[in-house]
Structure formats: C-alpha cells, structure tokens
C-alpha cells in the first residue's frame, strides 16, 4: 500500500502546475526533490522528455501561457517523473475541454509509454461516448 502511494502520480486539474515556476522546473521538481538529482541532470531529462512530445519550445514558459494540450502534456510528464509511476488521469476532458475524443491522449501516452509503469484514466460514466470502443 505504502509503495503504491509512493508511486501514485496524478494528472488532474485539481493538482495544478506551480505558477511561479517554468515548465521544465515543474517537471524536474519531482526528480530534484525525491532523488536529489542535480539541476543540470534533471533539466537534461526534462528537455529530452519534452522533445519526445515536440514541446521543447515551452520549456521556459509558465502555466498561464500554455494551451490546454500543452498543459496536459506537462502535467503528464510531471507525473511520469515519479519513480515507477502509476499514472492516474482524472477527467482528461476537464483538462482539455474542447477535445472531441480520447485519441490525442492515447497518442501522447503511447509516445512516452516507457516513462511509466501503468496508467489509469478515471472519468464519469456519461463521458463514455468520448472514449469510443475501448
């Protein structure tokens, strides 16, 4: 139970990014705090991760200037920085309200599938249409 708690990595609008930190700092924070990873090493890992999602250009931006898609990707990458992350995506359509279906989220998860152990998506039953035939 304790191990699972340590691996828990939520992606949710209720767990926002720190607004006084750049994108890369928000993602690197987990590694720097829990693994005492030096700043340069953490920055390198984060920039590589952002590159996987073609988002290197947002590394020095802050939360308010991100689009919904960019914000979701940053929340996801931050969650992936947890060691053996058990990612829990909470109501993805609340993070990206204009999304028509789940494809964008699945594609993003696929690009970084080596970063996490498992991923669970939680949503209301009435949102089932958005998920299609899973």
């Amino acid at each position, binding site marked *: 139970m304790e191990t699972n708690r340590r691996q828990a990595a939520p992606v949710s609008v209720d767990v926002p990014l*720190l*607004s006084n930190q750049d994108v890369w700092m928000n993602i690197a924070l987990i590694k720097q*705090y829990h693994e005492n990873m030096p700043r340069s090493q953490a920055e390198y890992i984060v920039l590589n991760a952002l590159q996987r999602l073609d988002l290197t250009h947002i590394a020095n931006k802050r939360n308010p200037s991100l689009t919904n898609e960019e914000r979701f990707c940053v929340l996801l990458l931050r969650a992936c920085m947890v060691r053996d992350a058990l990612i829990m995506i909470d109501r993805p359509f609340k993070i990206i309200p204009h999304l028509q279906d789940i494809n964008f989220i699945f594609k993003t998860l696929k690009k970084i599938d080596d970063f996490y152990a498992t991923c669970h998506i939680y949503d209301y039953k009435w949102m089932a249409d958005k998920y299609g035939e899973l």
Partner: protein
Amino acid sequence: MLGYIIIIEENWLMNVLENIGRLEVKTANSFIDTISFARKVILRMFQYRTYNSAMRMVLINQIYFTSVQILPVFLLASIVLGSLLIGIVFQLLKQLGLTDYFGNVLMGLIVTELSPFFTVLFITLRSASAINTEMAVMKVNGEIKTLETFRIDVINYLLIPRIINGIVSLVLLSSLFSIVLMFSGILFSWVIFGISMDVYINILLNSANFSDMVIALIKCAVFGFFITLIPIRFGLRASHEFTSIPIVVSGGMVSVFTAIIIIEVLSLVTKLF
C-alpha cells in the same frame, strides 16, 4: 429604574472586559503558535536532508530576487538616505559642540541601529509583501495541495529557502548600507569637521564596539527570520477564495511590522544589560 441602569452598565462593562480578554487570548495564542512554528523551522534548518537539489535551486533564486535584483535601487537609496542622515547628524553634532562624539554616534547609532532598521523596512516593503501574496496565491490556486500530493514537504521546499534567504539578505544588505554610510562619513567629516581620512578611520576604529556589532548582526538575522516566517504563515492561512488574499496579506504585514518593533525593543533591552 436605578437598578435597571446599573444592570445595563454591568453588562456593558462585562462585554468590554470579555472582548479585551478574547483579544488577549487570541494574541497570546497567535504569538505562541508563531514561536512554536519558528522552533520547528529552526530544527529543520539544521537537518541535512532539508538541503536537496530542489530546495537549493529555490534558495539561489530567492537570494537573487531579494539581494541581487534589488542592488541598484538599494545602493541608490543607501547613498541618498545615508548621506542625508550623516550630513544632518554631523551638522547637529557640530552645532551642539559634540564633535568629539561623532565616532560614537556614527558607530553606535547609525551603523548598529539605523542600518538594520532601514534595511528591514526596505526588504519588508519589497520582499515580505511579495512572499505573503505569493503564498496566499499558491494556497488559493491549490498549488500547496499539489506539493502535498507529490509528497513534497512544504516547510522544506517553500519555507526554509525563503527564511534562509531572509537571514542572508538582511545581514548582507545591512552591512552594505553600513559601508555606504561610512564612506559618506569620510566626505561629510572632511566638509563639516575638516577631518582627514586617516583621522576619520582612526576615530571609527576606536569607537567600534565588538559586542554592539555582534548584537546588530544577530538582530539582522532575527529580523530576516521573522520578516519571512510571518508572511509565509499568514499567506498559508488563505482559504480557497481569492477574496481571502487581501485579508491575509494585510494581516501578515501588520504582524511583520509589530514583530519589527518588538525585535527592536528587545535588542535595546539586550544592550542595556
């Protein structure tokens, strides 16, 4: 009729006394809370594991924002205010025929008393208010909850770097202000008293009291500790509504200024013994 008036007056008196008592209890509780929280923070400051990579990065950023970014404005203010102060004090000493005491006045009053006071006011207005607002906004936005969710200790990550920064900045900037004042003193002592630089330095060295300097540095460190601790505590008291931000910020700033006065009085009492 008379009995009725007496009852009303007794009730009124009781209400006043109850209100005073309630205020006293509230103030005492708040004071005890702040002191016990300060104790907790000091203990954490001496733990090795507090100083991880993330905390160190925040500390460096904070020192940059508080001590380095402020330098041009602070230096300008120090030169203007310091020269004005030195000029007025030296002129007054000359008029009163107290020229022999100018070294004692410069070291005992201006360097050890006014420098820390001026610096703490400057840093409080610029950084303490910013820290108070920053914490309140983080609380309202749910960013504190984010840190807790990812098992990041709020005291280690947010509080300790800001408090260490407060201590370091206050000590360094106050010393800088003192240096600027002493350099202004060279000019004014030459213009007003006709004293050469060698004689001026000699007078300063003879007037310097080691214990006063140590008390001044300790006072700066205590100022730095409380002008960051109190705004953080008040900022974290914000609720989840934006309307709570101005309330906690104004409350925090009033408490910071009260703390400054208390520390100033305590340092004067310490000097007496």
